C-alpha cells in the first residue's frame, strides 16, 4: 500500500505542473481520438440518420449488420488495419503504419458502428417526427435534415461522447497499428500499459488520472447540455 501512495504522490508531481512528456502523450491521445470520432461521425451520423428515415427492402438486415458490427473485437479491426496499411498492403504506399494516421483510421473504424447504432437508436422516433414537422411547414430537404438534428442534438452529442470514450480508452488495437513510439505514437493507454510493465507506476497513475479527468469533463459537459 505504501508504495501505491508513493506512486500516487509522484504521479501528482508529474501532473502539477504537468511534465512535458505527459502533456505530449495527453495531447496526442486527444488529437487521435478526437479525429477518429469526428471521422466516424462524418460517416456514421448521416448513415444512421438515413437508416432511421429510409424505407426499403432489406433495411432490417442492414440494421442487424450495424448491430453485429458493435461486437467486432478491437484487435480484429487492428489486424485488418495493420494488413491494409502495412508496406505490402492495399494502402501500404501511404506509409501509415506506426503513425497517428493508422491509429486514427483504426479508432474511427472501431467507433463507426457505435456512432451509427447510437444515431439510429436516438433518431428512430425524432427523425420521422422531425421530417413530418419540417415538411408540414414547407421546409426544403436540407432544412428538414437541419430540423431533425436540432430536435435530436443532445442525442447526437451523446453519440459523439460515447464514441470518443470508447476509442480514447482502447489499448490493444492502438498499440498494434501505432506501435507506442515515444514522441510519435505514444498515447495515454499504450503508455500506461508500457510503464506498468516497466514498473513505473507513477507515470501510469498520472495518465490514469488524466483519463478519468477527461471522462469527467466530457460527461459534465453532456449533463450541462441536457440540463439546458
Amino acid at each position, binding site marked *: 500500500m505504501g508504495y501505491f501512495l508513493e506512486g500516487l504522490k509522484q504521479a501528482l508531481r508529474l501532473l502539477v505542473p504537468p511534465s512535458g512528456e505527459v502533456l505530449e502523450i495527453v495531447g496526442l491521445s486527444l488529437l487521435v481520438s478526437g479525429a477518429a470520432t469526428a471521422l466516424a461521425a462524418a460517416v456514421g451520423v448521416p448513415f444512421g440518420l438515413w437508416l432511421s428515415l429510409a424505407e426499403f427492402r432489406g433495411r432490417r438486415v442492414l440494421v442487424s449488420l450495424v448491430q453485429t458490427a458493435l461486437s467486432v473485437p478491437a484487435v480484429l479491426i487492428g489486424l485488418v488495419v495493420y494488413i491494409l496499411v502495412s508496406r505490402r498492403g492495399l494502402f501500404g504506399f501511404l506509409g501509415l503504419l506506426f503513425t497517428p494516421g493508422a491509429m486514427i483510421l483504426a479508432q474511427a473504424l472501431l467507433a463507426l458502428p457505435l456512432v451509427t447504432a447510437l444515431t439510429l437508436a436516438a433518431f428512430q422516433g425524432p427523425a420521422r*417526427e422531425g421530417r*413530418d*414537422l*419540417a*415538411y*408540414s*411547414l*414547407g*421546409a*426544403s*430537404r436540407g*432544412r428538414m435534415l437541419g*430540423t431533425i438534428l*436540432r*430536435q435530436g442534438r443532445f442525442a447526437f452529442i451523446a453519440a459523439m461522447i460515447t464514441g470518443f470514450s470508447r476509442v480514447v480508452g482502447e489499448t490493444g488495437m492502438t498499440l498494434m497499428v501505432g506501435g507506442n513510439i515515444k514522441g510519435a505514437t505514444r498515447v495515454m493507454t499504450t503508455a500506461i500499459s508500457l510503464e506498468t510493465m516497466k514498473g513505473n507506476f507513477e507515470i501510469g497513475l498520472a495518465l490514469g488520472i488524466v483519463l478519468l479527468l477527461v471522462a469527467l469533463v466530457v460527461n459534465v459537459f453532456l449533463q450541462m447540455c441536457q440540463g439546458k
Partner: protein
Amino acid sequence: MRIEARGVYRKSGKHPILRGVSLAVRGGGAFVVLGPNGAGKTTLLRILALLDKPNAGEVLYDGRPASRFSGAERTALRRRLGFVFQHPLLLNGPVIANMRYALKLRKLPAAEDRIDRELAALGLASKKDLDVRLLSGGEKQRLQLARAMVLEPEVLFADEPTSNLDPVSARTIEDRLRKMAAAGKTVVLTTHNLLQARLFGAQVFFLKAGEIVQQGTAFQVLENPATLDVAQFSSITNVFHGRLVRADGESFLEIGPARIQVASGLDEGPVAAIIRPEDILVSRDPITSSARNHFSGKVTFVDDLGMVVVLQVACGDLTLRATITRTSLREMGIRTGDEIVLTFKASAVLLFPEE
C-alpha cells in the same frame, strides 16, 4: 386549389390501409373525413398533404399528378398546404421560438405582429415565452395550429385536431378552423365525431376499412346513412337486429315478439335497425298522431346529459332509449319506474340489410 385522389392504395407491410380511395376536394370550405379508428383516416390525410406516397393510385393537384413532381415542385406545393398532427409535433424551446422557426424554415421575415395575432386568436398570447414542455395538451395543439396558420396555407389538413382535448381548447380550435373555411380557404379534417362534422356543415367522406362508403353533406349522411356503420355514428343506441316482413301491403320489423311498422323498400329477411332516440316522442298518455308506432313501457333509467335527458324505457322485451329536453322532463315529472308512452313514425326506423 383542387385536390383529387384517384384509386389511392396504401399498405403497411402486407396489410392494406387504403383500398382504392377516390375523392375530390375543391377549393374553399370544410371537408371532413369521418370514420372509426383504424379506417385509414390519418394515412389518407398524410397522402393528400404530400407527407406520404401512395403505393398505387394518384393524387392530382389542380389536375397535375403528384408522382410527376420534382423534389422542388413537391416543396413548392407543400408550402401551400398546412398540417396539424393528432399528437402535436413541437420544437423544444419556448412557444414563440416555434412560431419563429416556422417562418424561418420558409425564409420568411419574422413578422412579429402576425405571430402575435395568431397566438392571440388561439388564446396563447400570455404563453408566448413559456417552454412548450410546460403547456397542457390542449395548449400544445393550439400552438401547433397557430404555427401552421402563421404560414397562411391555402389548404389546412387537421388530423383529429380536437380529440382528447379539454372543451375550451377544442372549441378554440374548432372556431379557428371554421373561420378559415369561412374565409374561403380549404380545411380538411378527420374526426370520428359526427357532431363535429355537422358543426362544420361540411362535405363528409365516410371512410371504413380503407374505403369510402358514403359521401355527401353532413346532413345527407346523417339523415340517409348508407350502411349500418355510418348510421351507428349518429346513433349508437337503439340498434336492433330483427326480420323485415310484409303483411297487407305494409312493412314490419319483428324483433322477437315486438312488431314495429317501418317504411322500407328492402326485401324481406334479416335486417339491422336503428331508431334515433331524438325521433321518439315521449308522453304520459297515448297521443293522437299519424305516427304508426306506439309503445308503452316503464322508465328504467334517467340519464341526465345536461341539455337533454335520455330515458331508458322497457317496453316488454324491447328496451328503447328516447331523448327529451330537461324542460319536458320537469314538466311531465317523469321519474324512474313511471309508465310512459313512446311514439315514433314508421320512417324513423333506419333499416340495413343483413346477411
